[in-house]
């Protein structure tokens, strides 16, 4: 079913909307949640939460890109679920790596306006848009979809070392840009 028709079902409060959304995007969202949770039960629960969150959000929202909209919900829910379980559980190597890399890009800074916080997301988006297509895809697959290095290497048909290099270079580049923007 076309995205626009699924969204119409949500707006009409037709409960088949959830089934249609699940039919179309369960594979897509499962991968996102699985990348972080690595557990079938947790991933399934995360997906159920995603469909019901979508029911809550639509309406009033009318997503322009439905895949990104539900993927974003799944990612947020998976991160929340992961954090709750993190203390009690030893982290998987892949998860530890991707979290460590994202932590490298987190920092404290002084700000007196909420506006400044908003600018940083724009800075990230501008950075991504100026990257070559392949670099942007690699960066988003790693830090939005939380893919493993191995999966990204497979997707692009290059060695894992090449992907690590690419990510390392662009992390450093982004970190410098973000720090500069935060200080200004």
């Amino acid at each position: 079913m076309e995205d626009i028709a699924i969204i119409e079902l949500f707006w009409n409060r037709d409960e088949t909307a959830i089934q249609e959304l699940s039919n179309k995007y369960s594979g897509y969202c499962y991968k996102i949640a699985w990348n972080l949770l690595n557990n079938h039960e947790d991933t399934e629960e995360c997906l159920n939460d995603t469909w019901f969150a979508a029911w809550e959000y639509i309406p009033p929202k009318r997503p322009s890109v439905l895949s990104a909209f539900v993927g974003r919900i799944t990612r947020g829910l998976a991160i929340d679920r992961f954090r709750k379980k993190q203390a009690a559980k030893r982290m998987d190597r892949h998860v530890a790596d991707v979290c460590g890399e994202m932590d490298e890009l987190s920092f404290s800074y002084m700000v007196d306006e909420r506006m400044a916080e908003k600018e940083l997301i724009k800075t990230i988006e501008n950075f991504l848009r100026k990257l070559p297509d392949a670099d942007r895809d690699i960066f988003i697959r790693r830090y939005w979809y939380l893919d493993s290095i191995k999966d990204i290497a497979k997707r692009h048909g290059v060695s894992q070392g090449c992907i690590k290099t690419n990510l390392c270079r662009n992390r450093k580049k982004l970190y410098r840009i973000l720090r500069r923007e935060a200080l200004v």
Partner: protein
Amino acid sequence: MKRYFNFSEEFGRIDETLIAEAGKPWTVERSNILKLYRRKIVQAAAIILIFTAAAGNSHVQAAVKRFTTKIGEIFGFSKDLSDYTEIINQTQTKNGISLTMNEVILDDYSLIVSVKPDYGDGKESPYLWINDEKTLINGQRYQSISSIVGGGMDPEAFAGNEIDPETVLVQEYDDMDLSDGEIEVHLVLEAGAHVPIFQENRSERIAEFVYDFTISAEQLKAQTVQKDVNMEIPGGDDRRLILKELVMNDLHSRIVASGVTWDDRWINEYEVKLKGQDSFGNPVSFLSAGFSSENELRFETSFFGDYEGDAVFDADSFQMPVPDKNCTYLDLQLYQRKILPDSESVEEVDDEYYMEESLDPSEMYSEDEDYGWEPVGDVFRIQIKE
């Protein structure tokens, strides 16, 4: 006020178009089709050029007449594909580009369409591709594992030549397991200049063409041979490959093997292929095509034959490496070729990471040394029929 910038949270809020773009399969069409497939496209182009130039020759003329479909002609299939081919013949015009979709072939492993584009008076030939994200087969989206283009796509290869612009687009899939009967296809083609994603008017510069039609994959599926092989053969570096399944029809053939994983050192240091002949004496070649899952290595026949970059061939000698589906056995041998890193591309980034690209083997190895391919183990036989 002190604030903490939490990257993982902030990154979750990035623009939806960026997320959606990265959510699509990574295909060469979306980045730079000519860069990655130049060699293959030029090979396909060469076949067409030779056929065109030799049309007056009675021997070649006879060969040309064997092709009853455009798809067969452009890729040089030795078998008549007309029984499997659905003629659509629908023309749509958008943004000054006119696309006529002529032929479609569908089976569990591929969607093949022939399209005749008319780009009007535009000086620059736009790119043409199948939108994997929007294309639905029986209402379902399948993620393709590769995309191939044959025919009139390469502006450089065709510069100055008055040549049929008919283009064949192929999406290859792992295994769609299509149902019997009529299958509904919602095919979305896109054509336009290569516009970087960050350009605001990007969508305006890409024309979308939607074709809805039904097609039966039954006949091709019925003539597809599937054989459990379960044969162990020696691999390089003391590995053992287990050939699990063979699938073959008139379009393509594949062998699925286990015994190595994606991160295996041998498979990362060597290219591999299975080469030999079928019981009719047809040369066959299955090239390593990556992993379907972590430990399932796919060997596939190629639409472009098993030719090296500087190999010279003409229409008469060009050979599809697909075995005849009626053959009783395949005699094959495993070959490996060392992947040579380009030392000039190695770049130190920090202590841990480095970047390397591999060199084009056809530039490193000569024809005399079989372009670097060396046999592994002995010739073995896959018995298909008793």
